[in-house]
């Protein structure tokens, strides 16, 4: 029996994978990133590598397939199963729901693929539904699953059912396909016609959520409710399928699966798949110019060599040494620019005479100053992307620079090295990207290039952050990555957002009448860990609200029916929290922009009149902002100048209602609750991209304030802190107050301390939670009119809340500790902090006031009381 259990769904099958590069991966060029070698060979090498981590190879941990499968299937499968695959299947057969959280390319798909085969044995009518985050992934997996069933000699029809499925094929798929691959946005509209799905739903034996970690944030909320509506309908047809959630490694797989689906899961996270040796280098680009002691954010950004440029140089260097590389960039424009950099640098590189050994199949060899490279992102057409994927897989391309589009499982084979232009924001994402390099048991190389901001600098300074728990697992037959909870960010799904809940409740009512039994899906019991969320009598309140609005009729003790305009599910926008989304249009009326509609909060913040936005590599200016119509829109016009805009806002928080609180003693309080955040994006500036200089005067947006009723976490500090925070600050280090301030230097400096604490916690929150930093915001104020004391708030920036503020409340102890430590250890001079510790590019207040010593004092005081 071969001991090479590659999951066909996640790796190119051995037979097709023969690049002919029997040079054992990159390690034949093991010295390519050795500092001595670099000093000789790499242009301007100046010790940018600040740390290297080596992870030893791991061999596979397997179980004979015959222990898990009937003999005939085991034989035809032709290889052993990894331990986690066997365990997953066993647990499913015991009647458990399973959350599989093992690293990328560990064969998770095989678990549910084989379970379906087993179900079919026992019940020929059994069906399975698999939900993917994207249509592309679903299509990709269809091929793999079909090939697997072929090999196993099973006549199972695997079909994709989504927006692109032709109408004439749909009835046949619904009625006859054994495995249906779809996505949550599709399910949202298909559920309304559930009678047409009766065959499939009534026989559903398995519901699988693939790449479940992608269901996070706003999108995650909607997926969670769509899945509840689906399960409710499955229950109506008397089906009770097992559930499998596969995800990359996250900090809370059991909790996440439970929140996503409503059911408890057992966790399978001991990885049995093998890995080659992995070298990870941490690269810190240098400052290009000398900055003075105090400098602004814009000056700093202009000075630091962009991570993208450094990435380009590294990829060129690797390519010339025959190392096939996949690089990840933050933006689409970044991929294009970096690709150009690669070509240019390869041409200028002093490397020569490294001999043959370029990637075997590329014509002309790779060592003569030429490196083939292609950018890749979702803005490219389907055909272009397919081409790039294939050329990468076949070895025809030396390198590809991609956005997160290639992070998910689309099969592109495996490269020798991955380079990350900037920390991707979560450890899960970090390991997922790294996992793209290293063929089977071949060795892999990765480089993390740090950007100028706080979180990247934190990671470069504390590489152990990425390897926590590695020591505990070192002896185990486990992964080369940390696998236990706590070592990864938690995926966040907030079931407490009432606006989102209300829309899904309405859609559910139109699918099937609602009664008391639906407390199971929509009542308080549907929200695990409901502390801090207002879920008391939620079903009653939701029904009453809609009934009084004329959309529902009846009462819960008998039945409640939908009575409104057709298709209420069309009001569910999977990426925004209210139905007031703005369309994004192009000025010449062409609909080629292909930008999904944006929520109102985002429209005000980033797409206000006059704002410059980047889309698909082009800069656009917002020339029209139409809100009064039933379908609001913004219109974009391409511009030729290299400018960007910065928006200033004023903010206030009112009608604060605490829902949970911790009394920390000495008049310190940490609280969580809801409040009204009013943000006025009133002014903006235009600045030159190259120099950061201001162009013209500050302009008005012409918009009024936007109000959000949302969730927030805040710290109430004692008034005495105004003095104690500045105890050790000499007079000369106080901030000078602006003309109209009027409360004195000390108070202004104290405010700088609060503001810094707020910023730093927001910037480092990604250490604890998977989040998108544009979806949280903060406010610091002394005193706040309602709390009466110095206060700083961190709030969710979407209407109804999204779970991030809640997550910060729950992780406050470790977040505050890490934040204080990072700010205290920052090597910047001056008292105003720097982008690596306190300055935040998203600050609506121009990063003023900020005072690092005061912030450290404040955070220390808080930290000592949190323990």
């Amino acid at each position, binding site marked *: 029996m071969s001991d090479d259990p590659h999951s066909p769904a996640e790796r190119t099958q051995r037979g097709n994978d023969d690049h002919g590069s029997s040079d054992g991966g990159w390690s034949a060029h093991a010295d390519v990133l050795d500092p001595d070698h670099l000093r000789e060979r790499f242009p301007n090498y100046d010790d940018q590598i600040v740390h290297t981590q080596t992870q030893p190879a791991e061999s596979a941990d397997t179980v004979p397939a015959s222990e898990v499968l009937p003999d005939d299937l085991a034989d035809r499968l032709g290889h052993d199963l990894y331990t986690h695959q066997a365990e997953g299947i066993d647990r499913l057969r015991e009647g458990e729901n399973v959350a599989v959280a093992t690293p990328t390319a560990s064969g998770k798909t095989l678990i549910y693929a084989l379970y379906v085969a087993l179900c079919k044995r026992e019940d020929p009518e059994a069906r399975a539904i698999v939900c993917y985050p994207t249509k592309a992934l679903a299509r990709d997996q269809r091929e793999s699953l079909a090939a697997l069933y072929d090999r196993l000699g099973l006549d199972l029809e695997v079909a994709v059912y989504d927006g692109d499925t032709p109408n004439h094929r749909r009835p046949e798929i619904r009625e006859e396909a054994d495995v249906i691959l779809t996505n949550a946005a599709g399910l949202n509209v298909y559920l309304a016609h559930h*009678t047409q799905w009766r065959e499939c739903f009534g026989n559903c034996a398995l519901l699988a959520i693939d790449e479940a970690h992608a269901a996070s944030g706003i999108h995650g909320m909607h997926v969670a409710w769509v899945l509840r509506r689906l399960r409710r309908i499955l229950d109506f047809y008397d089906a009770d399928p097992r559930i499998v959630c596969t995800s990359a490694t996250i900090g809370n797989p059991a909790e996440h699966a439970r929140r996503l689906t409503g059911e408890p899961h057992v966790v399978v996270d001991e990885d049995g798949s093998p890995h080659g040796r992995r070298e990870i280098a941490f690269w810190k680009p240098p400052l290009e110019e000398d900055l003075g002691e105090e400098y602004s954010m814009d000056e700093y950004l202009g000075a630091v060599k962009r991570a993208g440029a450094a990435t380009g140089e590294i990829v060129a260097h690797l390519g010339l040494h025959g190392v096939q590389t996949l690089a990840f960039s933050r933006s689409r424009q970044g991929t294009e620019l970096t690709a150009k950099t690669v070509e240019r640098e390869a041409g200028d590189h002093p490397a020569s005479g490294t001999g043959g050994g370029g990637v075997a199949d590329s014509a002309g060899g790779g060592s003569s100053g030429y490196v083939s490279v292609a950018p890749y992102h979702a803005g490219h057409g389907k055909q272009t992307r397919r081409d790039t994927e294939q050329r990468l897989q076949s070895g025809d391309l030396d390198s590809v620079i991609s956005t997160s589009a290639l992070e998910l499982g689309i099969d592109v084979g495996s490269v020798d090295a991955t380079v990350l232009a900037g920390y991707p924001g979560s450890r899960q994402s970090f390991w997922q990207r790294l996992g793209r390099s290293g063929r089977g048991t071949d060795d892999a190389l990765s480089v993390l290039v740090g950007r100028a901001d706080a979180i990247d600098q934190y990671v470069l300074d504390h590489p152990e952050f990425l390897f926590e728990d590695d020591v505990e697992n070192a002896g185990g037959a486990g992964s080369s990555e940390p696998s236990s909870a706590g070592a990864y960010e938690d995926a966040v799904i907030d079931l407490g*957002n*009432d*606006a989102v*809940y*209300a*829309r899904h409740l*309405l859609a559910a*009512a*139109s699918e099937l*009448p609602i009664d008391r039994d639906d407390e199971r899906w929509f009542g308080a019991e549907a929200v695990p860990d409901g502390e801090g969320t207002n879920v008391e009598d*939620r079903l009653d*309140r*939701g029904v*009453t*609200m*809609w009934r*009084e*609005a*004329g*959309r529902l*009729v*009846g009462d819960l003790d008998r*039945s409640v*029916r*939908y*009575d*409104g*305009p*057709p*298709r*209420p599910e*069309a*009001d569910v926008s999977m990426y925004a929290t*209210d*139905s007031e989304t703005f369309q994004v249009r192009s000025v010449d009326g062409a609909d080629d922009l292909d930008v999904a509609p944006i929520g109102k909060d985002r429209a005000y913040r980033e797409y206000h009149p006059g704002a410059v936005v980047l889309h698909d590599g082009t800069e656009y200016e917002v020339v029209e902002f139409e809100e*009064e119509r*039933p*379908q609001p829109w913004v219109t974009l016009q391409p511009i030729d100048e290299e400018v960007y805009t910065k928006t200033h806002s004023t903010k206030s928080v009112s009608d604060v209602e605490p829902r949970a609180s911790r009394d920390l003693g000495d008049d310190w309080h940490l609280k969580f609750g809801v409040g009204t955040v009013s943000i006025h994006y009133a002014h903006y500036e235009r600045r030159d991209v190259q120099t950061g200089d201001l162009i013209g005067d500050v302009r008005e947006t012409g918009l009024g304030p936007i109000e959000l*009723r*949302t969730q927030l976490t805040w710290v109430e500090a004692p008034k005495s802190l105004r003095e104690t925070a500045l105890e050790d600050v000499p007079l000369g280090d106080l901030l000078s107050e602006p003309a109209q301030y009027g409360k004195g230097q000390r108070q202004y400096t104290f405010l700088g301390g609060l503001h810094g604490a707020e910023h730093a916690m927001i910037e480092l929150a990604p250490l604890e939670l998977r989040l998108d930093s544009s979806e949280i915001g903060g406010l610091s104020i002394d005193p706040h009119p309602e709390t009466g004391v110095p206060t700083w708030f961190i709030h969710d920036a979407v*209407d*109804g809340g999204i779970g991030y503020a809640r997550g910060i409340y729950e992780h406050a102890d470790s977040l505050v500790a890490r934040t204080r430590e990072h700010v205290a250890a920052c090597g910047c001079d001056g008292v105003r902090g720097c982008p690596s510790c306190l300055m935040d590019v998203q600050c609506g207040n121009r990063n003023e006031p900020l005072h690092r010593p005061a912030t450290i004092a404040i955070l220390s005081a808080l930290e000592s009381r949190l323990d």
Partner: protein
Amino acid sequence: MQPGRLAVVDSDALSALSAEQLQDALDAADPHAIVATAPPARVRLRSTLSDLDRPILTPGAGTDTDRPQRHVFGDVEVVLAPSLSALSALGDMADGDLDPATETYVLSDLLDLSVRPTELRTVRQGLSAYRDALATDDAPRDHSLRGSHTHLSTGLPAGYHGDWDGLTVRGTAPGQIDGASAGGATDGESAVASLALGPDGTVATTQYRRDSLGLRAIDGIGEQRARTLRDVGYATRDDLANAPIATIADLDGIARSTAPRLVERARAFDAGTVRRRTDESLPRPEPIFVDIETDGLSPSIVWLIGVLDREASPGERYRSFLVREPNEPGAALAAFCTWLESAAADRPIVAYNGDSFDVPVLTEQIERHCPEHGEFWAARRTFDPYTWAVREGNAVLPGRTNGLETVASALGFTGADAASAGADIGDDSAASVDATPLDGAEVARIYREWMADPIPENEPDWQTLEAYCEADVRALAFVYDAIDAADRTAGASPAERAGSESASETTQGRLGDF
């Protein structure tokens, strides 16, 4: 007794409509009075239609705002209450001037709703002050009003009905509630609402959408083309009907082959004929015409099935299968199936929009309540003239929309046709068909109230409801006959006969049709 008819316009809607569209809506609604929801709407109305000869009511504005103003429209009393003080004075009025025997409608802008999903509640705004204003010393909180009152508000959408702590509240404004869902597409949003107020408190509502008024009522003329035509002087359907085809064909955005079709449609519009586009025939033999009444769009019960059989002996026969007792939901279904089996087993069943509503609903209800008929029912042939004409493009139906009542009326179907045949039911029916304005939503609501609390006061007037259903069934038969009679070749224009129109030219079913 005659209902009172009001047409309601608001500023947003007005700004989106051309003068011709507005006139078209008013012609269709034929109101006794027009309600402008705010002063700017009133101003715009007057300036757009300077020869308007109906009174315009504007709640919340005017010179003498402290006193209520009584109007009589049809046989119905409508009292305008421009302010809370006027409302207070209403209590005094009730003693002498108002007829307690008929429903009195109080019209104001003092009540509205705010739906707040982030707080999971709907706030009824203005209710407290309103009730306080209605109270008098002896009778706190609106008990001073004698007789039955319905409180109309321009702050609520037409079609809205609510019981606000004992006050019957209805909406009048075109469009939807702020903050609540609008459902699928929002194109062709409602521009003018029309209300028929019955003396017994029933109200029928029609919403006229932008894409069904003026030139836009013609298939193939969207906003762009309507503007183009208007710019060169063809602003109404009549203008277009009399226009030289060559001139139209020369315009931007109108292809040479399209122009004749548009002109023909304009000509056919008010001529009230069906235009066949294909040779597809209607099913044989003579069908059974059916319409059902339920308790809403997601029904839990089919309580009335109206059936017209024109081949009964000795002569055509209309039957009603009615469920008076809501706790026997399957009774009408079983009786219907039994009758069908014995009398008309081999004839197709025709229902308007039956494919989307009547047939699936009947199927589901039969399976649930009388499954013994399930197999028989599943084997029936059904035919839906709406699908056949509109979705499949076999014919163009006259009328502003493709809704049954609009099409039938454009073809010349009148209340008389409905009422005279209603002699089967009782001679009050002719009068009641006129006086009780009903629409599908109102009928469903009436039955729901009965179901929720089956006490004698809530018992519906079965004759009126049956007459309503019968009128629809007869309208259906009328439309069916008109389609059948439409001469396939002579009626079609040369432009239509030659070549097939592309799918985009086909009339697609519109949200506003139902």
